[in-house]
């Protein structure tokens, strides 16, 4: 998270932090462990009223930002989510709301429900292996008269069983098409997956000759490539901001532990071997904040550097964030591996976000593509 916030932004962030402290304390997260949805509707509706789902939505659709840059504002919520390991499909909900709002008034009713938090929509973009590498899309969308017909599979899809609508990305000829499919449409089947997060839920969704009117297409048929890439960037920005919040919480917990825990008559924090590991972790943490904020700012401003910065953030935070969290476990000793301790809540959150929207290795390959294309400075 940025070091300097406007007073409006700080107030906005604090409101969400206070709400999560009350509504999603660690005991509640543990209670939700076996809940099929992972959160209850009222929690999400109240969060929506605090602005969780409206920041990327145009004012004409009931949205609006705090600072003029809704994505940067959203990263404040995401960071706070990470610090609390809070329930709810924050990235997916916002990406879909933003996409529908950007597409004009055709889906305004759905956007209104998403903004108010009375409904959820899922973002169906990733595909089952072997097509689970970043950017790969095999699902087919074909036009038949006044309808489009959807065939293929998507996974993992967050909160699909809770969603009223699914924003599905598929291929029509060479280009990409996005379709807003009602979750109850015939031919849609939704199967739960197992996951490591306590409160987030993922599903495999298959589309078997799912037929919807062509009006359900979002954007251009076969012309959604740039839009899908932008959605991936938005999701990655929210996911990395949340991951950094989780790193921050785990780090603070572990620093405090190092002060409180004694061994051989002195605190762990007095051993240089451990102090130096904390120093490295602090450097990784600050660098993670820096790249996450840079990616958010670049995507928010539509900068030509956005794609590169998103991949830097995903690759760096995924890799070094895991190092940090596993080091936090190590420095806790045995207690760090227990369910009773809170550390794993943050480890879980970071671990999920690391693997979604492209792994660190996927993003390093992307960066290599960018470096290869880059002209020499000379």
């Amino acid at each position, binding site marked *: 998270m940025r*070091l*300097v916030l406007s007073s409006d932004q700080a107030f906005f962030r604090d409101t969400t932090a206070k709400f999560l402290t009350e509504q999603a304390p660690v005991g509640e997260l543990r209670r939700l462990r076996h809940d099929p949805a992972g959160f209850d509707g009222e929690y999400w509706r109240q969060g929506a009223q605090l602005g969780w789902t409206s920041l990327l939505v145009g004012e004409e659709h009931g949205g609006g930002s705090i600072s003029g840059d809704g994505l940067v504002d959203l990263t404040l919520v995401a960071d706070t989510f990470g610090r609390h390991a809070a329930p709810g499909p924050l990235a997916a909900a916002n990406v879909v709301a933003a996409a529908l709002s950007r597409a004009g008034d055709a889906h305004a009713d759905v956007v209104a429900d998403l903004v108010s938090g009375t409904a959820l929509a899922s973002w169906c973009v990733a595909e089952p292996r072997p097509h689970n590498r970043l950017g790969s899309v095999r699902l087919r969308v074909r036009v038949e008269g006044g309808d489009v017909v959807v065939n293929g599979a998507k996974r993992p899809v967050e909160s699909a069983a809770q969603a009223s609508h699914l924003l599905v990305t598929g291929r029509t000829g060479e280009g990409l098409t996005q379709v807003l499919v009602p979750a109850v449409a015939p031919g849609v089947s939704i199967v739960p997956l197992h996951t490591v997060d306590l409160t987030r839920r993922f599903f495999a969704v298959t589309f078997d000759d799912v037929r919807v009117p062509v009006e359900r297409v979002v954007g251009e048929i076969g012309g959604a490539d740039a839009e899908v890439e932008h959605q991936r960037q938005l999701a990655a920005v929210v996911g990395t901001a949340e991951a950094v919040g989780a790193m921050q919480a785990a780090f603070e917990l572990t*620093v405090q532990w*190092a*002060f409180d825990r004694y061994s051989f008559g*002195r*605190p762990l*924090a*007095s051993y*240089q071997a451990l*102090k*130096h590991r*904390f*120093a*490295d972790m*602090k*450097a990784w943490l*600050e*660098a993670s*904040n*820096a*790249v996450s*904020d*840079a990616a958010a700012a670049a995507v928010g401003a539509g900068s030509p550097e956005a794609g*590169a*910065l998103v*991949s*830097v953030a995903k*690759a*760096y935070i995924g890799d070094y964030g895991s190092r940090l969290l596993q080091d936090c476990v190590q420095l806790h000793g045995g207690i760090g591996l227990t369910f009773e301790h809170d550390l794993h809540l943050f480890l879980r959150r970071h671990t999920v976000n690391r693997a979604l929207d492209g792994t660190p*290795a996927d*993003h*390093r*390959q*992307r*960066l*290599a*593509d*960018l*470096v*290869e294309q*880059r002209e*020499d*400075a*000379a």
Partner: protein
Amino acid sequence: MTTQDTGEVEDLDGFRQRARAFVRVNLRPADPAVVSARLMLPEEETLAAVARERELQRMLFDAGLAGICVPREYGGQGLTPDHQQVLNSELAGYEYPMRLQIPTFVPCAAVLFDRGTEEQKQRHLPAILKGDELWVQFLSEPSGGSDMAGALTNAVRDGDEWVLNGSKLWTTNASWSDWALCLARTNWDVPKHRGLTVFMLPIRQPGIEIRPIEMLNGSKEFCQEFLTDVRVPDSHRVGDVDDGWSVCIRWMFHERMLFNSPLLTIPAGAAPGSVVSPTSMRDIARDAARLQDPAARDLVGEAYMLTVAKGELERRLREGIAAGVLSDQAAAIGRVFGALVSTRTTDIAFELAGDTGVAWANDDGTLANRGTDFLMRQAGCIGGGTAEMARNVISERVLGMPREPAADRGIAFRDAPRSHSART
């Protein structure tokens, strides 16, 4: 060190036009051979390069492009870090006064600006900006560099002068520079931090013998100096007598900020210090015929990731320190990160070069010398204060963890235990 004049600040677009016109007309393209992070030129070539760089600095000065963030009364432009960024981007791909940046501008000029008297600043800052004075740091000694406050170089007062005796070590650029900032001991009867004083001295003088040290890669950019009865007027003292440690605190701050300082003029895309730039990493992979190898691409991507992360972290620290939300000690975070990035990028370049990195021909292009760079890998973790010392600062001063026990605390420095070699 930015202070803006009360007058109108030149707008960025106008400044860019002015900088671009100067660069296009006056500068030569950067030498593409300079991809290796550490240069090893024969002595005459180094001296010729230094002469050219002094000339470049003078040209920048005459064009109103030197000392962008230095106030006008000291010969600078009184502009902002944004202007400096614009200049850096206009310089991309061109020659520039590389060897004058560190340690002359940072940390030496920065320390003078912070702690020099008005007279000292008037005399030296304009001379530095014109390329007339190159500065070095007389800090580390044979007895140790990490424990900076343990300096043994002795300064004794004699009327209006001081007489210095001792030895300094690892002085970057000493063979062809002009002035030094020198840390010396002026009181042996108090604990170490309270008996230090900082002086400025010309290094080409009879009492100073300068011996180049050959590093393991063959470079001779470092020297050892022997000071014998060197007389320094009291007017060349920086800060109060026995208050040298407070000067050192600023000195270390600037040293840790290093490449993050708005006082530096470094073309965008030029790799600072020992970091191999992403484009040269791509060239190495290409020359190694591994550009399509996914394992090599993973490394190229990683190097790019680390370089960008370093830049963004530096920006965060700079802004946080300027806004007062981070303490100056947070500069140590950037120092540790820089060490991590230089180590890893050196490893990656060496890995990409394969066996050509250790057995190369003259026409092996970017692959040549990668093994030598690898031998020098730890330089980025030692120079400018070691990474371990920066880790001490982060854990103790940023995170507030207990300080390491020290056997020399609270006792007169003359009684403090010291290295075998430094015992008398």
